[in-house]
C-alpha cells in the first residue's frame, strides 16, 4: 500500500468529459426517440377550466398531447418523498385540473421532433379560473405555522442575554436562490429488455426510481433508474422532478422512448430552490468577549403542500462555546413550488446571519473578530456536551490569518485605501457542515488481466466521486487507473443512496477501501501467503483464477444491519452530526478582501483565503476545486443572486442566466485554498469528513463583513447590490 493518499490526480473522467464523450442522461441515443415539451401554467393558483389541444394535434409531427385527464391515476405516495425522507410530493402537476403554482406543467406534448413538440406546446390553449394567492412570506395571505418541536437549547439564554454587558440584536434576510446547474434537468424514459429505464441526471437513482414506480403503481423492480453523470446538482436533482413521472407515464402509454429536457426558463418554476428566510440573531458577551448567550430565531418560506422543513438552527450553536443557547424555527407557507436543498441548504443562510452578527458583536466589543472566534473555540458541543470527533477550526483560523495577512485589519472602516482610491475591506467568517455517511453494498471484481470493476452507491455530479473511489483502489490495490471500471448511479449495478449533504466521499471512500482490503485478504488466502509488491492481478493470475470478486456491506457508524435493508428499499439512511460518542463536523475559515469603488459603491472581491478541516483530503486537485466552487457560490450569494418575485403574478421574474445573476470570471478574484488534512479515523476507515458543502458555509458572511470593514455599512440582506452602498 502506498501512503500517497491525497495525491493531486486529474479526474478519472476528465478526458471523456473534455472530449464530449461522457454521455449525460439527455445524450442517450435511442432509435425512435420521441421528444416532449411541457405547457407551463400562466397563473399562480386556480383551476383549469379547459384545455384546447386541437391546434397542437394539427402540428405535423405531434404524436399526442397529454393533460390531467390522462394522468389522474398517478399517485403521490410516500415512496415519492423528496430527499432526506421529508414528507412530500403533496402535489404532482397534471394529475388534477388544479394549478398550485405558476409555471407548473398543465400539458405535455409529445412529438417526433423537438421542434414539433415546442410548436405543439405553444399551440395549446388553456382557460383558467384564477384564485387569490400569496407568493411572498410577508403577504397577507401567507400561512405562518407554529414553531416546530425539537429546537436546540441549553441553559437560560434569555436571562444571560438580559444581564450581559455587550449584546447585539439584529435581523438578517436571505433571498430566494436558484441552483442553476449547467446541465438542464431532463428525463428520458425507454423500454430496454422489458423494463422501463429512466435516465435522469439525478443525485438519487434508487429513491427516484422507487418513487416513480410507486407513483405509477408499479413494483419498484419494474423500473431502473440510471444517472450516468450529473452535470451539477447542488441539491436540485435530489428528488422526483415535476416532469419525471409525466415522461415515464408517456413512455409507458406510447410504448416508445420519450425525452424531455426542461428549458431553463421553466426550471425557475418547476425545480426546487433555496427558500427565502429571515434570521433574528441575539448574541451576548462579557467584557472579555466570552459568549454568554445566543438566541437564534428564523422564519423560512415553504410551499403550501410539502414539508420542506427548516434546519437553520443545527449548526450555529456548535460553532462556539456559548454559555447558553436557544433556537427557534418557523415556516410560512406561500403559493410556490416546494423549495429544497441547495448547496449548504440551511448552513449557508445561517452562517450568513450568525457570522455577520458575530462580526457586529466584535465591533461592539472593540475586539478583533479573529480573536473573538479563537477566544470562544470549543472542543465540546454546547448543546449535548459531547466532544467533537475532530475540530481544527482554530488552526483553520490561525493558518488562514497568517496566509491572508490579517494583521492589516483594523477596526476603522475604510482605513485601508488602495492606490486607485478604492476602499479596502477585510472580513472573516467560519462555517461548519455535519460529517455524514450512508450505507453501501459494494462489489469489487479484480480480473487476472488487471481489469478492476467496482459497483457501489454514489452519483458523479462533477464533484469527482469516481476519482475518490479510484484513489482508494489505487491506494490499497495499486491497480492501473486506466483499467478501472467504476459503476455508480445505476440501480442495475448496486443499490443507490441519494448523494448529497457532503456524504459522497465519506461514504464511497470507506466502501471502496473496505472492499479493496477484503479483496487483498481473500487473495492472500488464495495464494496462501502474504501479498508481495507485485501487481495484485499478477498474483491472482498465478492462482489460475480468471477473477476474484468480493462483496462488502458498509454500515455507517452508529447504524446496524437494518441500514442495508433500508438502502435496498431506496430509503434514505444518513448519519450525523451526532454519533454515539461524539459529534462530527467539517470546519472552515474564510478570509475575504474586497475593494469598494468610492463613487459608485461597486464591490470587487479581490482575494479569498479559505482553510478547511475536512478530515483526510482524498485528492488535492478536486478538493481545491470544490472549495473554489464553494467560494464562488459565496460571492454569488453575497453580491449577485436573487430570485425576483412580483407579488402580483407569483413565481419569479428570472428566466435565464442573464437575469439570474451568477458571478462571471471577472467577479472572482484570487481564491487560495488550504487544508488541515488530518484524517478523522474515529468516523470512518478512510478518515474522510466531507467538503462540498462546508466549502460554501461562511464564504458570503466573510465578504459581507469585509464590505462593512471597507464602508462602515452593515447591509443585513443578500445580495448586497450597488444601490445598497450608494
Amino acid at each position: 500500500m502506498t501512503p500517497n493518499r491525497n495525491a493531486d490526480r486529474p479526474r478519472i473522467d476528465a478526458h471523456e468529459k473534455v472530449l464530449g464523450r461522457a454521455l449525460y442522461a439527455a445524450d442517450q441515443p435511442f432509435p425512435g426517440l420521441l421528444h416532449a415539451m411541457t405547457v407551463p401554467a400562466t397563473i399562480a393558483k386556480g383551476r383549469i377550466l379547459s384545455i384546447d389541444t386541437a391546434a397542437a394535434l394539427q402540428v405535423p409531427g405531434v404524436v399526442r398531447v397529454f393533460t390531467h385527464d390522462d394522468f389522474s391515476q398517478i399517485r403521490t405516495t410516500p415512496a415519492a418523498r423528496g430527499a432526506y425522507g421529508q414528507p412530500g410530493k403533496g402535489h404532482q402537476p397534471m394529475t388534477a385540473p388544479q394549478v398550485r403554482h405558476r409555471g407548473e406543467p398543465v400539458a405535455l406534448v409529445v412529438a417526433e421532433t423537438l421542434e414539433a413538440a415546442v410548436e405543439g406546446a405553444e399551440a395549446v390553449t388553456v382557460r383558467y379560473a384564477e384564485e387569490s394567492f400569496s407568493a411572498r412570506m410577508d403577504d397577507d395571505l401567507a400561512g405562518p405555522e407554529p414553531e416546530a418541536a425539537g429546537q436546540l437549547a441549553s441553559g437560560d439564554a434569555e436571562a444571560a442575554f438580559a444581564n450581559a454587558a455587550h449584546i447585539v440584536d439584529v435581523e438578517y434576510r436571505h433571498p430566494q436562490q436558484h441552483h442553476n446547474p449547467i446541465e438542464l434537468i431532463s428525463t428520458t424514459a425507454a423500454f430496454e429488455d422489458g423494463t422501463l429505464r429512466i435516465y435522469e441526471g439525478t443525485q438519487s437513482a434508487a429513491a427516484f426510481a422507487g418513487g416513480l414506480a410507486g407513483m405509477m403503481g408499479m413494483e419498484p423492480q419494474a423500473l431502473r433508474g440510471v444517472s450516468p453523470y450529473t452535470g451539477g446538482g447542488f441539491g436540485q436533482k435530489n428528488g422526483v422532478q415535476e416532469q419525471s413521472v409525466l415522461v415515464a407515464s408517456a413512455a409507458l402509454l406510447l410504448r416508445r422512448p420519450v425525452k424531455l429536457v426542461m428549458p431553463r426558463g421553466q426550471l425557475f418554476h418547476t425545480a426546487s430552490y433555496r427558500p427565502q428566510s429571515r434570521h433574528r440573531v441575539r448574541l451576548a458577551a462579557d467584557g472579555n468577549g466570552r459568549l454568554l448567550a445566543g438566541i437564534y430565531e428564523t422564519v423560512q418560506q415553504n410551499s403550501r403542500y410539502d414539508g420542506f422543513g427548516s434546519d437553520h438552527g443545527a449548526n450555529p450553536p456548535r460553532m462556539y462555546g456559548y454559555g447558553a443557547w436557544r433556537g427557534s424555527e418557523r415556516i410560512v407557507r406561500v403559493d410556490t413550488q416546494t423549495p429544497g436543498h441547495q448547496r449548504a441548504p440551511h448552513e449557508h443562510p445561517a452562517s450568513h446571519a450568525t457570522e455577520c452578527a458575530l462580526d457586529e458583536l466584535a465591533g461592539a466589543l472593540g475586539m478583533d473578530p479573529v480573536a473573538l472566534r479563537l477566544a470562544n473555540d470549543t472542543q465540546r458541543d454546547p448543546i449535548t456536551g459531547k466532544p467533537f470527533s475532530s475540530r481544527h477550526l482554530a488552526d483553520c483560523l490561525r493558518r488562514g490569518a497568517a496566509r491572508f495577512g490579517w494583521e492589516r485589519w483594523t477596526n476603522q472602516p475604510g482605513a485601508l485605501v488602495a492606490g486607485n482610491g478604492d476602499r479596502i475591506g477585510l472580513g472573516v467568517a467560519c462555517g461548519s457542515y455535519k460529517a455524514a455517511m450512508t450505507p453501501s453494498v459494494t462489489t469489487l471484481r479484480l480480473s487476472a488481466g488487471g481489469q478492476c470493476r467496482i459497483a457501489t452507491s454514489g452519483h458523479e455530479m462533477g464533484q469527482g466521486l469516481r476519482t475518490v473511489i479510484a484513489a482508494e483502489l489505487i491506494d490499497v490495490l495499486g491497480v492501473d487507473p486506466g483499467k478501472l471500471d467504476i459503476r455508480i448511479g445505476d440501480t442495475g449495478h448496486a443499490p443507490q443512496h441519494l448523494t448529497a449533504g457532503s456524504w459522497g466521499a465519506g461514504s464511497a471512500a470507506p466502501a471502496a477501501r473496505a472492499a479493496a482490503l477484503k479483496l487483498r485478504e481473500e487473495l492472500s488466502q488464495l495464494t496462501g501467503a502474504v501479498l508481495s509488491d507485485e501487481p495484485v492481478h499478477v498474483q491472482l493470475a498465478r492462482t489460475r483464477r480468471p477473477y476474484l470478486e468480493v462483496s462488502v456491506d458498509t454500515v455507517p457508524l452508529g447504524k446496524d444491519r437494518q441500514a442495508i435493508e433500508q438502502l435496498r428499499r431506496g430509503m434514505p439512511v444518513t448519519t450525523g452530526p451526532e454519533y454515539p460518542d461524539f459529534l462530527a463536523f467539517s470546519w472552515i475559515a474564510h478570509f475575504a478582501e474586497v475593494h469598494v469603488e468610492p463613487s459608485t459603491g461597486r464591490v470587487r472581491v479581490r482575494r479569498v483565503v479559505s482553510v478547511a478541516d475536512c478530515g483526510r483530503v482524498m485528492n488535492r486537485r478536486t478538493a481545491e476545486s470544490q472549495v473554489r466552487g464553494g467560494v464562488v457560490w459565496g460571492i454569488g450569494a453575497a453580491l449577485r443572486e436573487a430570485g425576483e418575485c412580483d407579488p402580483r403574478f407569483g413565481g419569479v421574474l428570472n428566466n435565464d442566466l442573464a437575469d439570474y445573476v451568477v458571478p462571471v470570471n471577472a467577479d472572482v478574484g484570487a481564491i487560495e485554498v488550504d487544508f488541515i488534512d488530518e484524517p478523522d479515523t474515529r468516523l470512518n476507515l478512510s478518515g474522510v469528513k466531507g467538503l462540498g458543502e462546508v466549502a460554501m458555509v461562511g464564504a458570503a458572511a466573510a465578504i459581507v463583513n469585509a464590505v462593512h470593514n471597507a464602508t462602515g455599512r452593515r447591509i443585513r440582506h443578500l445580495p448586497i447590490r450597488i444601490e445598497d452602498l450608494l
Partner: protein
Amino acid sequence: MKPLSYVQVRTAREAIEAFVAAGESARYIAGGTNLYDLMKLGIEKPAHLIDIADLDGANRIDTDGDRLFFGGAALMADVAEHPVVRDDYPVLAESLSKAASQQLRNMATVGGNLLQRTRCPYFRNGADGTYPCNKREPGSGCAAIGGIDRSQAVLGASAACNAVSPGDWPVALMAMDAAVELQGLDGTRVIPISELYRPPSRTPHLEFTIGREEIVTGISVPKTAAGRNSTYLKVRDRESYAFALVSAAVALEMDGDRVRQAHVALGGVATVPWRGRPAEAVLRGETLDRGRALEAARAAFAEARAGRHNAFKIELGARTLADAIINAGSRNQ
C-alpha cells in the same frame, strides 16, 4: 413544423426585393444573436429570414476619409479591435468591448446592434401570456409599471412603457453625433442616429423610425480630436457579460484645460439612447474638477423620474457620468 425559409443574398437590392416579396413575416438577420433569442422566447415569429451578414462590402471598416465608416454587417469584435477606433475613439471601442461576450461579439454586427430590442424582463419572459406588455401586445398594458422596475428607465418613460434601450454602442454613437446610412426601396438616405429611435409615448411597439424593409448599410462618425478624450463607463450587476444599469459616453473637445464642447450620452437609464445636453451646457467653457463634473452630471438627470425600485439609477447615473467626465478629461494631453 412552422415553415421557415432562409435565403442568403449578396446585395442590398436583392435583400430588399426578397424582403418585400416575402411580406409581413420577413425579417433580416445578421449575427442572429438577438433575433434567434427573441424567436426562442416566442416574441419574434418570422417565417422568412433574409440573411444580410454577407452582403458585398457590408463588413467594411474605413477610417481613411473625414468620417469613420462601419458597414452594417461589420462585426462588433472587428470594430472594437480596429487600431484607429481603439486608439483614437476609445468611447466607441469601449462601448463595444464592454458589451455581451467575446463569443457574441464575434457573431454580432454593429448594424444589428442598433436594432436590438429591450431587456425588460416582462417583455422577454411573458410571451406565453403571463405578463401584459404594450411593446409585445399593443394595448395589453405594462407589467413593469408598478412591478419590479429596478432595471427600468428613469428618463424618457411614458405611461405605456418604461423599458430601457439596451445597447451600449448606440449610446457611444449618440455622443459622437454618428449618422446611419439606410437603403430602402427608394434608394439610400442618411439620418442622424438621434432620429433612429422613437420614444415610447403611446406606441411602445414602434421602436425605430426606419421602414420595415430598410437596411442599415453603414454607420459613420465624424472624425474629431475629441475622440481621443473620450470614454465609455458602464456599471452593471456583474463585472462582465451584463447589460448596463447605468452607462455614460463622454467625449470632450478641449481648449487647453477648458472644455470647448462636451459630448455626453447616457445608457441604461433611458428609453432611447439619451443625449445629455444639459450636462454639455454646464461644462461648456469650464475647467474640470469633480464638483463641476458632478454638477453637470446632475443636470443631465434633472428630469429623471424614479419608479419603485430604480431611484438609485439617478444618483448612480450622475456619479457614473461624473466619473466618465473626469476620465475623459484625464485623457486630454
